[in-house]
């Protein structure tokens, strides 16, 4: 391992190209115990075939007209021009952003509070945390189907609690339909984020709290001056997960509102599905797909930057 610094970079590159096991060098210490990049090849090829190839194709298809049966035909920027003039598209983007922002605004404080609370080692907290976890065991489909039935205007809870729900049809008006979507997403995903914060809160060094208590800081002050700053990284990761998740909400919309009333809850991901598999306009759908990928990649880059995954290589140096 000590010989690493003597190895010129060019050798490393050649090593990489030849699968990492240069003949006759196994005794020098550099390659002997280290796997070559060949070990990564099967996974890389598989991932490329079924995730990266579609990613490239979505860009190509966004420049084509395709009905799903015949061969795609190159049409240049037609789909994109069409999308620019499409009021539903613009509205869907706005709705995606709205749902995402509402989701983050509600889930973040909620899951921080629940997570910090659940981080305590009291018996009752452990028991309740185990129950809070249950929504995570249900698929997004099951969650949506369950809430659709629970909130059914005729046979569900709203029919029995008119004092709270008025006429009971939560799916008939835009504001309450959006409310339902935001609430159901929060119901489903808050446990996950709670879990993230619970782990992070437990990792905060106890010494900090002891010092604060000696200085006379109360629970509230401790929360704002110690816990919150210490959770910074978790807040970033959790929020990014919420943003990506929010932008791509699909099952919830499909099952709970079908994008309605009208197109009032048709968010971009759902609009794309409709364009493709209901209107058979796969080209336009691909253009929406490209938009989704761009936004998600942008967020992912921020995530890599902020959370320090990209620095992992350097922390390994010298091993």
């Amino acid at each position, binding site marked *: 391992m000590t010989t690493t610094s003597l190895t010129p970079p060019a050798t*490393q*590159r050649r090593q*990489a*190209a030849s699968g*990492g096991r240069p003949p006759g060098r196994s005794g020098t*210490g550099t390659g002997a*115990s*280290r*796997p*070559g*990049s060949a*070990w*990564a090849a*099967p*996974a890389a090829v*598989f*991932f490329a075939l*079924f*995730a990266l190839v579609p*990613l490239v194709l979505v860009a190509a*298809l966004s420049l084509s007209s395709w009905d799903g049966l015949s061969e795609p035909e190159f049409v240049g920027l037609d789909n994109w021009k069409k999308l620019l003039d499409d009021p539903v598209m613009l509205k869907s983007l706005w709705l995606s952003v709205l749902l995402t922002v509402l989701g983050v605004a509600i889930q973040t404080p909620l899951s921080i*509070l*629940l997570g910090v609370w659940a981080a305590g*080692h009291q018996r009752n907290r452990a028991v309740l945390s185990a*129950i*809070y*976890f249950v*929504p995570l*065991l*249900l698929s997004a*489909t*099951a969650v949506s189907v*369950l*809430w659709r039935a*629970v909130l*059914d205007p005729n*046979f569900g809870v709203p029919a029995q609690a008119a004092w709270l729900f008025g006429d009971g049809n939560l799916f008939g008006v835009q504001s309450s339909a959006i409310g339902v979507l935001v609430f159901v997403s929060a119901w489903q995903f808050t446990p996950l984020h709670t*879990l993230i914060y619970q*782990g992070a809160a437990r990792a905060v060094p*106890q010494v900090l709290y002891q010092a604060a208590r000696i200085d006379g800081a109360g629970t509230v002050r401790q929360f704002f001056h110690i816990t919150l700053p210490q959770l910074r990284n978790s807040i970033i*990761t959790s929020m990014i997960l919420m943003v990506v998740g929010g932008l*791509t909400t*699909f*099952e919830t919309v499909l*099952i709970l509102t079908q994008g309605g009333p009208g197109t009032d809850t048709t968010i971009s*991901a759902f609009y*794309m599905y409709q364009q*493709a598999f209901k209107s058979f306009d*796969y080209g336009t*759908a691909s253009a929406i*797909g490209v938009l*989704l*990928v761009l936004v*998600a*990649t942008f967020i*992912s880059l921020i*995530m890599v930057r902020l959370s320090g*995954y*990209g620095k992992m290589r350097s922390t390994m140096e010298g*091993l």
Partner: protein
Amino acid sequence: MIKRRPNYLAGFGSLVWLFLVGLPLYVMLTATFQSRSGYAENGPLALPDSFTLDNYLKNLDNTESGFGQYFLNTLIVTVCVVGIVLLLVPPLSYAIVRSRSRLTNTVFRIFLLGLAIPSQAVIVPMFYVISKAGLYDNLVGVILPTAAFAMPVCALVLTGTMRDITPDLYEAMTVDGASPRRIFFRLVLPLSRGGMSTIVVFSALQAWNGFLFPLVLTQSAETKVITLGLYDFQTEHGVDTPGLFAAVVLSMLPILLVYLFARRALVQGLMGVGGK
């Protein structure tokens, strides 16, 4: 730990959340033991005045519903996805952690970016690729993309685990003249059992709960998975709520079992997704 007075406000808040989490679960569970007319009459909040297992039996009866078939299909998809992930990801993570080559580093970066590729965004080209490959309406066509999209998280989790193996152990084995392959099987795999169980649980969850790929890539009853079954159930017999709820409960039973017996792996997996 220094003793503190109980936090009543937080306690109250936690009970409110308990109510919100518990309400639909209560409605669902009590409804599954009621007859369809009983549920319609008593409403969702009432305690059941009769007890029946019909809703479950109906779902399990193959002549009345295809649920047995859907269950089997989901099981096949899940086992295959987990198999593919277990076959491909450990060598990948091993290379990421131990290889000095830049290529491996690039591969790792691509997988990290892959974390944020939403599967929704690529369903159209996926439909194209799978149709071209002749795998449309075939479980294989569901398994391959599901496994691919589970891989970035699994790679990240397992790489984290493998990084915790101390360099001394590698050096000791190198001194003994062990090949990378031997080190992988004798040292790395046995020491990353925690991460392995996490990726098994994570990929199994992805496969079991997957909805979009099956929705877009299959159409017949023979290839239907359980989530699609639930979706159909809701659109077809909109009013048979107890039957639908029983189907939901049945669909989550296997995951519940995992939760009861491998809670640690499940929780770790989900936390691993959040990342450090």
